[in-house]
């Protein structure tokens, strides 16, 4: 399972003794067989935390990603009672953001365009609705930046760059080389906001990152708890957009998107919406779902400010 990882530094990549220990734990975590490996996982997170102060951020990102992969594989193998991959992602994010400002990523073009729109809106006195749309775009840019940081890779230079607007819709999506949905920005009601599917080497399931982006000061909304969601343990009468259960609650709508279309007749964005719904339900049940909420805002002539509000995994 370490195939394809040869380009990563082993020791000497700024990792030193720490790096060697991290490598050894990663190797252990990747052994299949379902042996309990919680102590190893906890120790790995500890070492990563120490690495933040001692290694250059580039190395923390590399070790963070490799640790994430191993912790995710161990989780899916049933070797961990408590998932730890999200913690590795959070440590990776901190380091990644310290080396990549938003304007140094492939998001710069999109970010400049949004900021330009904001200037024009102020100069020409646009409507509240127009301002809201600009803020929404800023929210999405912020989400992509924060999620790129969690994943340790510039999404806008990868899968998002390959995405396109589906004809006749406001959905934006991309598929991987095998034709499976890999990225989706949803438009309209009864949807999650964004879905990113990340292939993890050696894992039986992809890591599915789903999220909600908020622009400006807009608050997180609430939806009604349906009966199946309640049976899944969410007893409160409403679900907030800021909690992980929001993803399956929307997936219940999304997975039936093609219902009214005769087979093969549904437009591409409808098929993508349905596929995303099924991916979310699958990921929630197989414990490979990560839910991320982010806020982004900007004033005229100032850079976009981003902040991660919540990150949860199941």
């Amino acid at each position, binding site marked *: 399972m370490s195939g394809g990882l040869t380009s990563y530094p082993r020791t000497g990549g700024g990792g030193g003794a720490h790096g060697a220990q991290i490598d050894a734990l990663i190797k252990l975590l990747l052994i299949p067989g379902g042996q*309990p490996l919680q102590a190893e996982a906890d120790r790995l997170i500890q070492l990563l935390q120490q690495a933040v102060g001692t290694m250059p951020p580039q190395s923390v990102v590399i070790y963070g990603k490799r640790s994430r992969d191993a912790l995710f594989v161990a989780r899916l193998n*049933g070797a*961990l*009672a*408590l998932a730890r991959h999200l913690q590795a992602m959070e440590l990776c994010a901190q380091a990644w953001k310290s080396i990549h400002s938003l304007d140094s990523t492939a998001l710069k073009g999109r970010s400049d365009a949004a900021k330009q729109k904001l200037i024009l809106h102020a100069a020409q006195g646009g409507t509240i609705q127009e301002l809201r749309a600009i803020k929404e775009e800023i929210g999405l840019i912020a989400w992509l930046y924060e999620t790129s940081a969690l994943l340790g890779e510039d999404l806008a230079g990868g899968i998002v760059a390959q995405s396109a607007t589906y004809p006749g819709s406001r959905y934006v999506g991309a598929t991987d080389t095998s034709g499976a949905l890999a990225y989706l920005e949803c438009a309209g*009601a*009864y949807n999650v906001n964004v879905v990113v599917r990340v292939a993890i080497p050696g894992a039986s399931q992809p890591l599915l990152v789903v999220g909600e982006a908020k622009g400006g000061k807009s608050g997180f909304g609430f939806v*009604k708890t*349906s*009966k*199946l969601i*309640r*049976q*899944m*343990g969410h*007893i*409160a*009468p409403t679900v907030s957009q800021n909690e992980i259960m929001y993803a*399956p*609650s929307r997936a*219940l*709508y999304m*997975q*039936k998107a093609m*219902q*009214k279309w005769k087979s093969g007749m549904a437009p591409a964005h409808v098929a993508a919406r349905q596929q995303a719904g*099924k991916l979310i*339900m699958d990921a*929630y*049940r*197989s*414990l490979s779902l990560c839910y991320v909420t982010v806020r982004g805002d900007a004033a005229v002539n100032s850079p976009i400010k981003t902040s991660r509000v919540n990150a949860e995994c*199941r």
Partner: protein
Amino acid sequence: MQMNMGRPFKHQAMARELAGQAVQDNQAAFSQMERNWNIARASQDITVALAARGGLFEWLAATAILGQEADFESGAKTVIQWGCKLAEAFRPAPELLLVELSLAIRRKDHAARRQLASAILKSAPSDDFYNLERGQSQALAALVDLDYDTAQRHALRLQDAATSGEFDKGDSILAGAWAKVMNKLAQQDFRGCVNALLLSHKEFSRQVDLELGRLQRGADSDITMFDMVDWTADAVAQLVVDFGYKLDHLNKRDSQEYGF
């Protein structure tokens, strides 16, 4: 065994189409439950187990809608077993054992019935998140326990909820209907209970058909297979028979009209 009191929906074709897909989509549910259970036990986190159980419910409800008797029977047995394990290992809120208790009653699995009812009655959650399924499970458990005073108390609580506006519109109507069903059964008024049950199931079907109709028109709906089975109604119909109301030969009209 027949579910939904043997009555098809108006949009039965749509229900069957969704059920066919749900059987496909939830093939992995049983193995997921097995794996998630171990993780849930190790971490003492019930939500990990409940995540997988959601898939089991969808699969089971789909086989009920499709009338796949053998699959449903074996699936119901498995679901009851998991329910008993959940009750033992965690202290789930009463509503989280409603399906299992209902199925145990239907299958005349007396050991499971007793265990689940006692777990439901022992649980004392805060009243903040009171909901229809909780009221149903508490009243049902009390009836299984032959504690008619407690059953009436829970029926009364449901009646309160029906009129106070603490539920949404659909659940308020159902809560009122269910309060009557449980109350009549607690009073040993079998005839009255069966009549109330018919009304409540009619309302249940109306609400399901409303959502199926939305899908038919191409609108959005979050209806699930789980929502399409009136789990509690079938259990109460069984209890009425268990309590000695002989629908089958004493009253021809009952057996024809009610499907049991």
